[in-house]
């Protein structure tokens, strides 16, 4: 069996489009995968769908497809993406419309469904609180299973050129084309583990080609401005070479691959996926050429039989008001400002569910306790944040930050204020056999004469 070439066209919903186009044009790809769903994106999408039954998928779907489809169709590159979010069928219809507009005939587009388990999640207990999902009442807005590769492989086996799903495990978007192409048995745990590693390394796009990596003077990245997205050349045994298109910016090195190997991993021996428990503990990473890194030695064990369920719920409103103090005695003035906000809210009888203040530039990020005696910075930005029951309360909070202009300490400037609803995520497990997935195939028509 030949080597399969699979690329990453996006690693999050807001990812850059130009590197995906470049990869589609020059990567000589068999598959191009767009991973665009963060933890709560699907909950936000579900809310959009409640307002409009034709909405609820990635807002950049149309732009991405208009940019990439003409190239991928010409090159015979097939696309897999989770840009369907809360509404894969509507997303697939939009892809069909874009393809028809572009004059791409007989393109097959599959919508994968079944990850939405909102109607059955009620009795399941949430890991974070121990309470059932149904106990959240009308605050509960979404529940989606991180599904595995089965429906994606089935759609590819049926000839889909584009597969649009909602929530699926991120590595599964990459593992599915490998299983489809090589015909790996679903109990070949070693190969499934290796394919999972390929997916894990690629799923954050530029994070393996020099993004999220540069540290000037220590870890310099060449031509970061023109960073290229990654591709893997995967062999039949599941081992792979990670690389990128020649001439693009960034770098693929042992160091970039090792950082990404451990990104969002806990125990490297037990990376739990819907179709396999992958073992990355004995992976070897070898630089075999410029921007070419061989990864091998991943393994796997039988899947747990459960899917992780991501449960989205409304969790009040977040207020965030900020103001800057600089120069002489800035920290003392910034702390006084925060105290004033707290006291004025208390005097007005405004109850906050939770609040905190930070001095940005001084203590907004956890720091080494040994760094306590750090010098006063030139400037600090006082940020007052609160979780509030209603948007009205959250607005009263940021009103008090803005009020610091005239009624606060000397020399406060540059107030900004934001109030937004908090969509939080909790999780639970559901037996995978209880989650019924499938796909629906759409097809573009012949050109109208």
């Amino acid at each position, binding site marked *: 069996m030949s080597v399969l070439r699979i690329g990453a066209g996006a690693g999050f919903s807001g990812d850059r489009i130009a590197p995906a186009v470049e990869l589609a044009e020059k990567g000589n790809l068999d598959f191009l995968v767009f991973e665009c769903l963060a*933890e*709560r994106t699907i909950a936000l999408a579900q809310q959009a769908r409640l307002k409009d039954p034709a909405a609820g998928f990635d807002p950049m779907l149309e732009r991405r497809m208009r940019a990439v489809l003409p190239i991928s169709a010409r090159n015979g590159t097939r696309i897999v993406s989770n840009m369907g979010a809360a509404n894969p069928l509507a997303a697939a219809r939009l892809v069909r419309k874009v393809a028809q507009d572009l004059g791409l005939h007989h393109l097959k587009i599959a919508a994968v469904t079944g990850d939405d388990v909102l109607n059955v999640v009620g009795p399941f207990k949430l890991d*974070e609180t121990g309470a059932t999902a149904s106990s959240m009442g009308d605050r509960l807005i979404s529940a989606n299973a991180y599904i595995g590769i089965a429906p994606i492989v089935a759609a590819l086996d049926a000839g889909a050129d584009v597969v649009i799903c909602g929530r699926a495990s991120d590595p599964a978007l990459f593992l599915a084309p490998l299983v489809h192409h090589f015909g790996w048995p679903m109990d070949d745990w070693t190969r499934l583990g290796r394919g999972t590693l390929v997916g894990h390394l690629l799923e954050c796009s530029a994070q393996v080609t020099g993004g*999220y*990596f540069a*540290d000037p003077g*220590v*870890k310099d990245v060449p031509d970061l401005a023109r960073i290229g997205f990654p591709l893997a050349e995967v062999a039949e045994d599941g081992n792979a070479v990670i690389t990128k298109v020649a001439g693009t910016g960034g770098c693929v090195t042992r*160091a970039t691959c*090792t*950082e*990404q*190997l*451990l*990104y*969002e*991993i*806990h*125990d*490297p*021996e037990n990376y739990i996926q819907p179709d396999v428990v992958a073992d*990355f*503990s*004995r*992976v*070897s*990473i070898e630089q075999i050429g410029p921007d070419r890194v061989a990864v091998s030695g991943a393994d796997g064990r039988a899947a747990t039989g459960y899917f992780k369920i991501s449960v989205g719920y409304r*969790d009040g409103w*977040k207020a965030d008001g900020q103001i800057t103090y600089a120069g002489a005695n800035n920290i003392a003035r910034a702390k006084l400002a925060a105290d004033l906000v707290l006291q004025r809210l208390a005097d007005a009888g405004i109850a906050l569910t*939770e*609040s*905190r203040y*930070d001095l*940005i530039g001084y203590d*907004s*990020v*956890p*720091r*080494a*306790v*040994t*760094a306590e005696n750090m010098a006063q910075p030139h400037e600090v930005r006082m*940020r007052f*944040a*609160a*979780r509030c029951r209603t948007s009205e309360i959250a607005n009263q909070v940021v009103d008090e930050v803005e009020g610091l202009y005239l009624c606060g300490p000397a020399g406060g400037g540059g107030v900004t204020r934001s109030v937004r609803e*908090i*969509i*939080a*995520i909790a*999780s639970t497990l559901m037996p995978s056999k209880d989650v019924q997935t499938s796909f629906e195939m759409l097809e573009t028509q012949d050109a109208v004469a």
Partner: protein
Amino acid sequence: MQLHEIAHGRTGDKGDTSNISIIAFDPKDWARILRDVTEEKVAAHFGPDVAGDVTRYLLPQLQAMNFVLKGALTGGVTRSLALDAHGKCLASVLLEMEI
């Protein structure tokens, strides 16, 4: 010296748990990192900002280790009121550790 002189790393987040990789630039420094960058030292470095356990996993063939910090993200990215709710900054903070 600072750990930053001989190692690099990356932060990831899942729920309220942060993970930080620490990777030797040069294999000859691995033994020193192994000896000096322990679970206890990392827990002490962050102090009360990490509410839960700190666990270290080793990948000696890559001269890499992975720290898992429970309760490090004030509830996790979707709930936290923190400015850097993902804890993206934490690896750089750990690389400030004196060894």
